[in-house]
């Protein structure tokens, strides 16, 4: 288990950043909080400020206009922080990779710890992503 994973055994606080998404991944993240999935059982919750967060969830492609903001948010985050790319968009650019406003996959911009592919990934997939990350040897 790496240092980061050791730090984050309990009660992860999550900050959600939509870089340039279609909203679908975002509503699926919100779905995680609502009664069917209810991740607050595990002490996870969405927080309003990156300065309180342990996990940064990024959805959507990084567009040219959001690029400086994404960097800014990452710089403001208390380290160590876990960055998870949610959806095909931040992983590779997905369907928008050929667009003129696409500034590159997320891992070219900030270091990424886990990728959850899918367009949109199911809430279960997001949970599985976090679990895999925590169990990393």
């Amino acid at each position, binding site marked *: 288990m790496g240092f980061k994973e050791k730090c984050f055994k309990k009660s992860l606080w999550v900050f959600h*950043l*939509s*870089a*340039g*998404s*279609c*909203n*679908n*991944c*975002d*509503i*699926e993240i*919100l*779905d995680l909080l*609502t*009664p*069917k999935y209810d991740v607050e059982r595990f002490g996870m919750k*969405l*927080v*309003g*400020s*990156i300065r309180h967060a342990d996990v940064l969830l990024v959805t*959507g*492609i990084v*567009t*040219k*206009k*959001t*690029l400086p*903001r994404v960097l800014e*948010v990452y710089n403001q985050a208390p380290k160590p922080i876990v960055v998870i790319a949610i959806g095909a968009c931040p992983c590779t650019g*997905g*369907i*928008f990779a*050929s*667009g*003129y*406003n*696409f*500034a*590159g996959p997320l891992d*070219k*911009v900030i270091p990424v710890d886990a990728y959850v592919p899918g*367009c*949109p990934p*199911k809430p279960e997939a997001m949970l599985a992503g976090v679990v895999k990350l925590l169990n990393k040897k």
Partner: protein
Amino acid sequence: MGKKTVVPIGPYHPLLEEPEFFKLYCDGETVVDMEWETGYNHRGIEKICESKTFEQVFYVVERICGICSTSHPFAYANAVESIAKVEIPVRAKLIRSIVGELERIHSHLLWVGLAGHFLGYNTVFMWAWKYREPVLDMFEIITGNRNSYAMFTIGGVRRDISAEQATQLLKVLDDVKIKTDLLVGAVMDDPVLHARLKGVGILTAKDIHDFGAVGPTARASGVDIDVRRDDPYAAYDMIKWKVITTPEGDVFAKAKVRLLEMYESISIIQQCLELLKKEKVGDIKAKVKEIPAGIGIGHAEAPRGEVFHFVKSDGSNSPVRHKIRAPSYTCIPTFRRSCIGGTISDAAIATAAVDPCYCCTERMTQVYDHRTGKRLMNAEELIKLSQQKTEEIRKKIKV
């Protein structure tokens, strides 16, 4: 007027799902002016569409907005089919309407939840989203995915609805109806919500006409427009339903319109399923050989209002021009009427009331200087600028 204070909100703010930036100019508690900046979410979809084939464009337009991921393909299908002059089978029409209305139910439930969340009434948020889950499960059963259904294709739909699925769907609808009753009871009779929402963020019918707002926003101000009735497409002229309007124009009226529309959607789906029994199973797609040269216009009533697609074809296998206008594009500017003059605390719910969707709205516009009439940027300059910026970014992130 006293000293103005600027309250910046965004681009990343706990209340905002998407990146956008608001500047509220306040005098004490009162909002006296506001500005907003979008463009964070601009992904260049119209241009991407031009590089795809007509079939592939469906999956691009679906990802304009995840919440209305049927409305955009709906309008696009109407546009392309108007170029190709195909008549789609009745069964496909019915299935299209069913998916469209299911989407309206899920979108309105989502809005009710978010509106509750904006008010700090998280119980409503949890309720509404809990009741939304069976609808999403139903989507998964019918289309194979919870969102982004990939259901439409040129000339029809890609999957049929079987008899078992229909029975299952009817059961879910009955359930949703009971839950809607519950929500309507919780919202309409709640004295706290009355006090909080009545008379807040009022838009008059004149405001609606001035800004060209559409959808539930317009209908809540007594403007009786609905594409489904005014220019019927798919199966909407085969069934009986009514357009919900109410004259008040405040946030409460918008909630009321949306909640009551859910009943209409349920009844539309039930009627469609009834009609579906009479159609031949499997007859869901008309053959389309080619898309001739021409211009096609299609619109559809999304949960938020009219979606408009313009497609130009030159006879090749991909569109040469694709123009999209989403409902939020005209609804968002109404903020200037609904927020200015109100208090800061009302601004959040007044903006949320039109159910703005910024990822739909991020279209690019050309700018003309209004004094000289000169175009400030032409395509070449923009491309140059874009290349220049890409170069800068490349350097910055070292790829």
